[in-house]
């Protein structure tokens, strides 16, 4: 009897362990998917800058297009500080009686700051826009007084806490406690774009900054950037929550971000920054730059000058920006290639380098009148333009915010991110020696355990948990006078503890797979090509292995395709082969509403969807959520030229007409993007709608649905 029990127990234990192991495997490749998509998103970011730079450099536009371009780039608020203060004035915003959220008085008190945390975390309230603007204004004024590099010492307190993000208050249940006179904090960038409460998190951060200006230190991250915010959804969040004053809030935040310090040095020995360093990083240079001027929107700012000068001289000015491009590196860890954009960047680079040669022989003709120190929104001083300093400064900052460490020696461009570099242990060694430092603490990379040491323990990466995947651990650092980093790990949101391992993996996995399907769809023609190469007899069938190899050769995402196959392909024959035409039908099934639209256009749309959305939002300069039909058409045209894709005017018109549901000549950006969102087959079925394969009847239903939308009924997507 006892023997039987033991055997039974062992059996169950082994099965259970196996189950857990499988779940863990799934979790890991889900993680891989997210990481790869996230990084390729960031890479696409830099490519967007390249695209915009391309527009400026290579376009000799017709007057129509020139209008669009200057429209895209126009920062029509060229005004002085006083004017800014008026623009952001909150004084005539009334707070209604029924408002039940927190009230703020300035100067801010600790109680009010803590009250904010309570309100956001527990009561889920929203701060009134009047207080938001006031808070942000005070923050802006304060930040302008800070140097580029914060310098603090441990002598006044026991320990300094270094956090990847302020979310620690939300996630670890505030275990470390709020910032205070005894508890100084350094927040290491990327305050936004990581969840739905980004604005609330920022407000709390700034509130504590105002209350304890000598005990809260902020370092800029690569997400503290206007264009990045557009892409990653922070802009949308703000506009949704603050319908009336959202635009002003965003503008003010733009300014605040540009004034965020770049790094912090503790006790002259420990450097804390968001991304990392490169072999050319020089803290002396960084201490002297005008940090609010030299920002990622370099391209944007130059456009102000564009509108008042000739194209020729402008092109030359822009080309100076181009020298941050590098030759191709070897041995990247992941290879993400959004190929058409990549190809194009290469070609531009070559072009630029040629013209750079030419321009070196001439002085740029820049109107010096434009450069008045008070005119803050203008982002170049004569000095920086007339020398290569601007480029150097920008590269320095880019490196600081975007770089990642690597195990090999040397310093190579960071192709995964599209900006900054990968730097090796020798670079760390050299850098620390040159600056008389002993340690670098940085964030920027999501680590499963929340932290990682490298380069002989001279570089510490610390990362908070990510709401994207939701279940990795986070960590933060405590640094005392001994300057030895103590790492504290914590588990992410309490939500995941309530779900079982199985459930939380399942949920995340589903969204990861959805994203992956979109990517596959977006590369359909390339995939078809690759499949045909393997299918020499043209049977339309592939073995599992061949399928996986072909997919990897096109997607370059370095994912375990064989393992994912079972979730991505349901139409498998009994012999174990895959009918790939059938598979494409299966994929296309998810895009039911769009079968009447040109396939290649569709593919392009999916592949560059987020870039497209970002561009639309840039075009929408007043942040209204609408762009005119004309701008819409022109944007597509520009993009198609850039990507060297054949898109007929007709196809674009079809697209535009489909989307302009009320025929008023303007397009709702959200609606546009929504129409092309991949919907989950299962959830649609669950909602009781019977959509089906790419058959004619499917098409008809799709059109019917569109007609319903056009007549203004809001059928949920």
């Amino acid at each position, binding site marked *: 009897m006892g023997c039987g*029990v033991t055997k039974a127990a062992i059996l169950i234990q*082994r099965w259970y362990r196996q189950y857990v192991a499988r779940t863990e495997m799934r979790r890991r490749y889900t993680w891989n998917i997210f990481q790869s998509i996230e990084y390729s998103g960031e890479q696409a970011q830099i490519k967007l800058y390249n695209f915009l730079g391309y527009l400026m450099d290579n376009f000799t536009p017709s007057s129509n297009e020139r209008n669009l371009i200057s429209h895209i780039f126009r920062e029509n608020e060229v005004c002085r500080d006083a004017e800014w203060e008026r623009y952001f004035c909150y004084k005539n915003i009334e707070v209604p009686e029924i408002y039940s959220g927190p009230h703020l008085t300035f100067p801010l008190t600790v109680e009010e700051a803590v009250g904010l945390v309570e309100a956001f975390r527990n009561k889920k309230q929203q701060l009134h826009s009047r207080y938001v603007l006031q808070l942000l204004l005070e923050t802006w004024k304060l930040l302008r007084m800070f140097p580029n590099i914060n310098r603090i010492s441990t002598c006044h307190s026991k320990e300094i806490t270094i956090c990847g993000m302020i979310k620690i208050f939300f996630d670890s249940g505030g275990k470390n406690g709020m910032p205070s006179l005894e508890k100084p904090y350094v927040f290491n960038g990327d305050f936004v774009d990581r969840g739905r409460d980004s604005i609330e998190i920022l407000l709390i951060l700034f509130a504590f900054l105002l209350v304890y200006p000598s005990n809260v230190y902020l370092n800029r991250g690569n997400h503290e950037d206007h264009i990045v915010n557009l892409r990653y959804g922070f802009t949308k969040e703000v506009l949704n929550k603050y319908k009336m004053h959202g635009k002003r809030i965003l503008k003010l935040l733009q300014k605040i971000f540009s004034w965020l310090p770049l790094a912090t040095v503790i006790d002259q020995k420990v450097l804390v920054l968001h991304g990392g360093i490169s072999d050319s990083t020089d803290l002396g240079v960084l201490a002297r730059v005008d940090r609010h001027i030299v920002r990622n929107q370099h391209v944007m700012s130059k456009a102000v000058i564009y509108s008042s000068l000739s194209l020729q001289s402008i092109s030359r000015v822009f080309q100076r920006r181009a020298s941050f491009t590098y030759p191709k590196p070897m041995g990247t860890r992941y290879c993400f290639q959004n190929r058409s954009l990549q190809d194009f960047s290469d070609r531009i680079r070559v072009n630029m380098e040629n013209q750079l040669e030419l321009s070196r022989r001439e002085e740029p003709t820049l109107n010096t009148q434009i450069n008045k120190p008070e005119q803050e929104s203008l982002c170049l001083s004569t000095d920086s333009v007339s020398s290569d300093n601007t480029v150097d400064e920008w590269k320095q900052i880019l490196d600081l915010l975007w770089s990642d460490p690597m*195990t090999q020696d040397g310093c190579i461009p960071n192709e995964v991110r599209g900006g900054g570099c990968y730097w090796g242990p020798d670079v760390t060694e050299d850098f620390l020696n040159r600056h008389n430092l002993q340690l670098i603490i940085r964030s920027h990379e999501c680590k499963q355990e929340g932290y990682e040491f490298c380069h002989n323990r001279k570089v510490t990466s610390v990362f908070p948990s990510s709401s994207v995947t939701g279940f990795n651990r986070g960590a933060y650092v405590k640094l005392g006078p001994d300057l030895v980093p103590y790492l504290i790990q914590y588990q992410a949101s309490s939500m995941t503890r309530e779900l079982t391992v199985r459930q939380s993996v399942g949920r995340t996995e589903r969204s990861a797979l959805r994203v992956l399907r979109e990517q596959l769809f977006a590369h359909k023609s390339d995939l078809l090509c690759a499949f045909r190469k393997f299918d020499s007899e043209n049977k339309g069938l592939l073995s599992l292995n061949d399928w996986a190899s072909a997919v990897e050769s096109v997607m370059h995402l370095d994912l375990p395709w064989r393992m994912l196959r079972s979730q991505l392909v349901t139409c498998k024959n009994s012999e174990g082969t895959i009918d790939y035409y059938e598979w494409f039908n299966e994929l296309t099934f998810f895009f039911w509403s769009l079968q009447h639209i040109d396939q290649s256009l569709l593919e392009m749309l999916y592949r560059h969807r987020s870039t497209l959305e970002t561009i639309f939002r840039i075009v929408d300069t007043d942040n209204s959520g609408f762009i005119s039909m004309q701008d819409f058409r022109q944007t597509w045209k520009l993009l198609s030229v850039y990507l060297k894709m054949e898109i007929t005017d007709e196809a674009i018109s079809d697209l535009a007409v489909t989307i302009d549901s009320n025929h008023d000549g303007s397009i709702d950006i959200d609606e546009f993007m929504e129409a092309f969102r991949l919907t989950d087959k299962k959830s649609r079925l669950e909602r009781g709608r019977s959509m089906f394969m790419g058959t004619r009847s499917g098409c008809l239903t799709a059109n019917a649905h569109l007609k319903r939308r056009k007549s203004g009924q809001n059928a949920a997507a």
Partner: protein
Amino acid sequence: MAENSKSAEATVLNTKVLKKLKGAFQAFDTKSDNTVDIKEIGTIFYSLGFFPTQADLQKFTSEVEDERSGYIHWDRFLPAMTKVLLEDKFPPISDELLLQAFEVLDKEKRGYLEPEELTNYMTKEGEPFTQEEMDEMLTAFTDEEKKHIYYKDVIPHLTLERKM
């Protein structure tokens, strides 16, 4: 000599299996340097469908570990795994036996187990669970309302995805 035997083994395993091994290994190669933490070996084994005992795992680990570094390199992992595969050392256990196993523990044949009972068995008999494993299992499988573990419902989850 190591190279020779490696390539010999590589040809012994067909590419499909080789890729599967590589995939499983790489999933845990967090530093991208072709090594995995020894603590993950159990997970790798299980995810490939094997059922080693804890003792088996320890033996395997000690043979392939890189000089007590706590890591195993692919170059040592592969030949050892090949041996395992060829010798069929840790054969899978049929899922039918799993039902019988639960029924042995459910002496009164109620169709379910109480959490305390299961905890008792799992943490005291056989190859005992850690507290963490036990907590996880209970969270995953205890029916919310009745607070019982209905093992017949649990078994399909445990045995899901058995396709190699």
